């Protein structure tokens, strides 16, 4: 049961080295296989101690750590790593029904948090955004994708030579997409990062915002930049490349 995410199509040029710390054999094997399928290298640790040892010794781009583990729990692994100055991005997976896990997880030094059950597409998108190799233009003042240009200081957006007027929220949406240009961002990631809501809307509310944004930046253009990745989310990239 390997999910071939279309999200990976743009990612094949850069592999990530991942460490998965998960005690449930079946989901662990599935994750390792699924990550390999999309071109990443994944190591596996099945308990907290092993996970900590591997995370300390190996050079990983992202750690995917289950919250509840035998021998040492996930938050403690991250806490220990952070205390020793290891800042490898870490994503926490958590079993359902735990109280305010996200806040506890992030407080313990985790960089992102995903409750179970999750879809692999969601996990993959989040891991790829977390990875340091993709951390590229985050602090730049101007983002460029194809002929689309966004100035973070003056809040100006231009497609070619045409200036585009965006609502403040549309600007933040585009800013987030362009910050992660070439990477898939899911609807949940947008809701969390652009709107700061951590719930799951039952409707396609994000899609409507995207289609509004799309009509402003892509309408009448030969090369659309804002792409829908089926089963995963959205990606902004220069279509030809």
């Amino acid at each position, binding site marked *: 049961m390997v999910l071939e995410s279309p999200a990976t199509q743009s990612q094949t040029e850069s592999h990530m080295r991942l460490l998965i710390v998960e005690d449930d054999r079946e989901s662990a094997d599935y994750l390792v296989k699924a990550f390999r399928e999309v071109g990443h290298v994944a190591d596996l640790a099945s308990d907290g101690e092993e996970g900590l040892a591997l995370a300390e010794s190996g050079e990983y781009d992202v750690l995917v750590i289950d919250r509840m583990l035998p021998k040492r729990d996930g938050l403690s692994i991250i806490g220990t790593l952070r205390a020793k100055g290891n800042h490898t991005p870490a994503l926490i997976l958590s079993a359902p029904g735990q109280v*305010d896990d996200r806040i506890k997880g992030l407080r313990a030094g985790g960089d992102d948090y995903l*409750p179970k059950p999750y879809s692999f597409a969601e996990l993959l998108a989040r891991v790829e955004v977390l990875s340091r190799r993709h951390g590229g233009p985050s602090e730049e003042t101007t983002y460029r994708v194809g002929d689309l240009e966004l100035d973070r200081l003056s809040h100006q957006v231009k497609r070619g030579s045409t200036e585009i007027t965006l609502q403040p929220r549309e600007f933040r949406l585009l800013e987030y997409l362009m910050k992660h240009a070439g990477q898939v961002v899911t609807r949940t990631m947008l809701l969390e990062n652009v*709107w700061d*809501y951590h719930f799951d*809307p*039952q*409707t396609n509310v994000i899609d409507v915002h995207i289609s509004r944004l799309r009509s402003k930046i892509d309408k009448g253009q030969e090369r659309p930049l804002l792409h829908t990745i*089926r089963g995963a989310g959205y990606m902004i990239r220069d279509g030809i490349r």
Partner: protein
Amino acid sequence: MTAFGKLIRTTAFRLTLVYLFLFALFAASLLGYFAWNTRRMITEQIADTVNSELSELNEQYTRGGLRGLVTAVEGRALRPGANLYLVTTPQGQGVAGNVASLAPGVMDRPGWAETFYKRLEENDATTRNHFALVKVAQLSGGFRILVGRDLEERRRLFGIVARAAQWSVLIVIVLGLGGGVFVARRVLRRIDAITGTTQRIMAGDLSERLPVGRSGDELDRLAENLNMMLERIEALMVGLKEVSDNIAHDLRTPLTRLRNRAEEALAQSGSETEYRAALERTIDESDGLIRTFNALLMIARAESGQARDNMTDFDAADVAQGIQELYEPLAEDKGLTLAVAAESAKIHGNRELVSQALANLVENAIKYGQPVATPLEMAADGPVNAAKPPDILIEARREGSDVLLSVTDHGPGIPEPDRQRAVERFVRLEASRTQPGSGLGLSLASAVATLHGGDLRLADSQPGLRVTLVIPSRGVE
């Protein structure tokens, strides 16, 4: 464990042992004190008698010489129950008195002594020695005089006290042990009854209740409290069962659909595109399941009160505006206008959950809402120039000490009798069966209201529905 072993392990029995020890110790020390004091008193009395007799006899000697003394001693020695008397020459020869023998050397030392003795009249080998407290005094001319009193009385009294001590300690032990066993058995019997019932309850019969006696003692109170706890557990279990039945029902449908679709795709030999399409539909379906699942967890979280850890102060108006901003494009897509009328109103609560509750209400309003009829149609007797009111209105305002967050739509509304049911989990009123959704929106909103100490009110807005989230502004601590 044997029945006896069980008995002596009870708290009641162990307490009995402790008290038993304390009481025995108390009785023994009381008797000991009594015996010691009595002995001292008797001894003092004897000493007084001896001293006064000795001084009288001394006087006789001074007045009447040896002859007078001998006469006096002989006289006294003949009285019934007489004390002991002995007068000796400087050579140690007895001159007068009623003493036949003494411990050796008693006459040589003037002063107090305790000695065995024999009287003259019982001077044969068979009678045993008696004890006496004696005082020897030196008389002028080398004579010595001894006056003493038998200690039999003191010995007997001491014996009585010692026996009393033995008996009382024995009785304390017997009564104490008996009482301990009685109490322990009584307690044990009732504890056994409680244990038996709890075991039956653990085996699955939640309707069992513990036996409650009429005495109203601590065990009865315990049993009553346990029964109340069982009542609550049973109610929770029933609720849980209802929920899981609903979950089973409502999750089974999409799961079956999911399975059928996969099976169907496998059975027919399709092209890759067809397979892909089938897989994508499968993923969509499972995403829907995950959403339902998450919503259920969210409700459980709100209902259990765990989310209270995460309370902050925030403005209801910000929440209302944020949600309006998020959903406005979606409403517009459906041809509806979504407006917000918010006044600043501070809430202490879980911002995330309140936002989600309001989002659910707005999603419902968008799902079921209809455009407001134009003012022209509304006014039968001529054109009216009033501005068209919004199709959906989000309001945030204060009312007394409550903060109200309401969403008003112009849809078909919910008939009065159905309103309570609409809030229950998975209940989707007949009219809404054709609409997508998990049927959890209102239940979550209601759970969030409860979490904040408020409630969810459904009202008719003629036409349409007004759902109001009422949150006390003091909120939950």
